[in-house]
């Protein structure tokens, strides 16, 4: 399967996301934000970084990039789309996902190996997990605090859109400890932590052994299975 990884000016984790796609058994296709062309990919990853230097609002300018017209169209057609960190911010800015992300409550950038609880497995990116499973995924952001209006939060919870929640102390101060969301159809998922940093032995989060966490790999593999099915 061909998975497109979009690079925007200021994207940082694009090569990591490409590596994760490869390790999950897919073919990674590098896509450029300035083109109106998805090159026939089967799924999309919007990687992390500081697109446009986080100017205006995180992800706001990138969400208006040329390629986003095609991304929104594909997402609405049901193509699996994963937004990681800055990519999650873009998905909310593009209104593919509800709510928004603002400055961490502590005011500082935080990097840690974060335990998440998988709340929803009926998505294209989490179907290999068990509901309630706890996984360890690296987290690194300055603006990862999920916020939404009370009405939106009520809808998000009612419709079961929450995919991941922080376990233990919430690193960002997110409403309801929300770490990641999906759309109702389950093909679009956004999360603040970085699954592409938990895909390779020796370079992942520290779990039982140093840098041995591989939970991110299942997120990338999930999409493959869904498409293959």
């Amino acid at each position, binding site marked *: 399967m061909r998975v497109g990884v979009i690079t925007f000016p200021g994207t940082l*984790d694009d090569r990591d996301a490409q590596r994760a796609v490869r390790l999950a058994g897919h073919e990674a296709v590098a896509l450029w934000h300035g083109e109106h062309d998805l090159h026939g990919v089967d799924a999309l990853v919007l990687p992390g970084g500081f697109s446009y230097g986080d100017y205006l609002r995180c992800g706001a300018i990138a969400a208006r990039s040329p390629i986003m017209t095609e991304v929104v169209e594909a997402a609405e057609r049901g193509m699996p789309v994963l937004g990681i960190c800055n990519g999650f911010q873009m998905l909310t800015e593009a209104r593919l996902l509800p709510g928004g992300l603002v400055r961490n409550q502590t005011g500082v*950038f935080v990097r*840690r190996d974060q335990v998440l609880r998988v709340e929803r497995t009926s998505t294209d990116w989490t179907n290999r997990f068990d509901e309630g499973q706890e996984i360890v995924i690296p987290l*690194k952001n300055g603006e990862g605090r999920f916020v939404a209006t009370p009405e939106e939060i009520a809808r998000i919870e009612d419709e079961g859109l929450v995919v991941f929640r922080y376990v233990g102390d919430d690193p960002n101060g997110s409403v309801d400890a929300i770490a990641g969301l999906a759309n109702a159809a389950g093909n679009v998922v956004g999360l603040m932590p970085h699954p592409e940093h938990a895909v390779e032995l020796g370079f992942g989060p520290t779990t039982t052994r*140093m840098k041995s966490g591989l939970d991110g790999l299942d997120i990338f593999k999930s999409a493959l299975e869904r498409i293959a099915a």
Partner: protein
Amino acid sequence: MTASTQRPSALRDTVDRAAATPEREQPFAALGLKPDEYARIRDILGRRPTSAELAMYSVMWSEHCSYKSSKTHLRTFGQKVTPEMGERLMVGMGQNAGVIDVGEGWAVTFKIESHNHPSFVEPFQGAATGVGGIVRDIISMGARPVAVMDALRFGAIDHPDTARVVHGVVGGISFYGNCLGLPNIGGETVFDAVYQGNPLVNALAVGVLRHEDLHLANATGVGNKVVLFGARTGGDGIGGASILASESFDDEGPAKRPAVQVGDPFAEKVLIECCLELYAAHVVEGIQDLGAAGISCATSELAANGDSGMRVELDHVLLRDPTLTAEEILMSESQERMMAIVAPEKLDEFLAITGKWDVETSVLGEVTGDGRLVITHSGDVIVDVDPKTVAIDSPVYDRPMARPEWQDALQADTARNLPRATGAALGDQLLALAGSANLADASWITDQYDDYVLGNTALSTPDDAGMVRIDEESGLGFSVAVDANGRYCQLDPREGAKLALAEAYRNVAVSGATPVGVSDCLNFGNPEIPAVMWQFAEAVDGLADGCVELGIPVTGGNVSFYNQTGETQIHPTPVVGVLGIIDDVDRRLPSGWQDDGQALFLLGTTRDELDGSAWAGAIHDHLGGMPPKVDLAAEKALAGLMHGVAFEGLATAAHDLSEGGLGMAVAEGALRFGNGARIWLSGITERDGVDDTAALFSESGARALVAVAREDEVKFTGMCEARGVPVLRIGVTDATSGEIEIQDVATLSLADLRTANRAPIRSRFA
């Protein structure tokens, strides 16, 4: 491409006018030039300089750019070399950064640089642009930057101003490095009152490249284009030029300019990717980043290095502020700019790539063959100089040196006379050391840095060295550590510098890598004071001798003088970065143990060396005596052994012994993964004839603590003996006890140790 709009100026100081008005007074003193330096410029030119030329000479002949006080000593590094040291060296001192051949067709470039003074004035931007500047040095070698590190020194942790500087500096490094997408893989944090009004912010960057991608800062090829690209040129970082502008000829220009540059990491990230695409397309003949002295430096260095000339039209510089004068444009230190030399037939392709990345680009002029750097502005020639007189043949000072008169008294004041504890009180001292500012857990700082990005980080803080994979297929990687000990250097700058080298070398070795190169950042006080100059000369000499003995070259670095608070000079602080190679990062060794029931071995010999130690400082507030003896042969043997041990997979963890001695090494090794240990000191005290205090807290060099699985013990000790490294089984790991038991002395719970260790930095600054 649009040219800047320039005001017509009837007052423009041209070369012709300078020749016709020799009597005109010029503000050379306000620009930092001495009368004899000004006279020398007139001599070189055979006339008075134009104000633009004066601007160029004044910045390029500044201490920061010209190394005029240090040059005569730095030559030592070039003189003290052996063939062994040159084996892997692809580019040595003199270019933007040194380059080392690491095998498999790969090369690594790395350099450490200071940004001390801006970081006191404006800590956030000062530190941020420090990272930005060193990363551009790496890019300009043709490399992809892949990691950064920082060595930070602040004032006393409880001083009311320290928090301002800490928050600013850490925030600036976090902001800039994270936004650039470079993992921050290590460094050090020190608090000492001597750095109160003068923090040290030293940033190191590492890049990797294929051999064939090497680029140099040489302007060659007559007719090649001189291209400026990146951010626009603005009025930042030109305090000096403002003096010139306001005093001499332009009363209507903007008066005050910020002296500290402002960084835009997004612009730099785009610049990195843009440059790498330019290199891949082979459209760059020579390249130089713009840092200190901006266009003055880039044009004169490119032309001087290339043995060529250059003709530049300043009107083509894209400006953020159209009111900038020619002098300000020449001196501006606006960040995120690069200058490339491009063959005319490749210019279109070059512009297509910078266009793709939305990087603004303008052609300023071209390379000439007449050995002159000629700069015009609105058609007038405002600079006409031999670029070598600007960039290379700056004044050289052999400043007076004198061993400080207090040195003898300080060295005589040994820590031997300090009271020593026994039994449980030694446990309390270990707890106090773990809770002292300079041995504290710095995770509140490092948790603000991304060490995951790029996906190749094999080791990072709090391990002894940062390690990064270079090649995903083979696992080839590099390891790098930075170290300094200003306290040792205050006691003896020559030996102190060697000790810094030895510690960085050892840190790289215990990670499993083989040390191959050095970059140094020499932070000292006011060089016009003979005692400071003596400290500098001693340290340089010590470092050069140490490198010869270890067989690894200094590949580059920088010198920072005038680090002082009022009249108080900082401790001499040569920060040494050592780079190592590991053929497969899978063989890395973390600094702590992950398994139960493994043997803990102490490598090396313990002497009673507590002068200048963390124990003397943190427990007794004492600094005096002679630093630990340097034994580089023993360091070399230890490093060779550690390479063998890692290669054969005989150890599961290794931690160097340094500040806080064995006690802190055991504490840190246990806290790394939260696994306890039981150790006994009797073997050390009996074999080495030292007491428990020395066994626990002495800072003798060439030692390491190594965890070994039971089945590998025999092979491990056999290898130690074969290589002549003293080895002693001093303990066993315990993954269940949750404590460190020092037999017959004291028992400490890991929870208490962690609480104490985290308190100084996290509780104060979070």
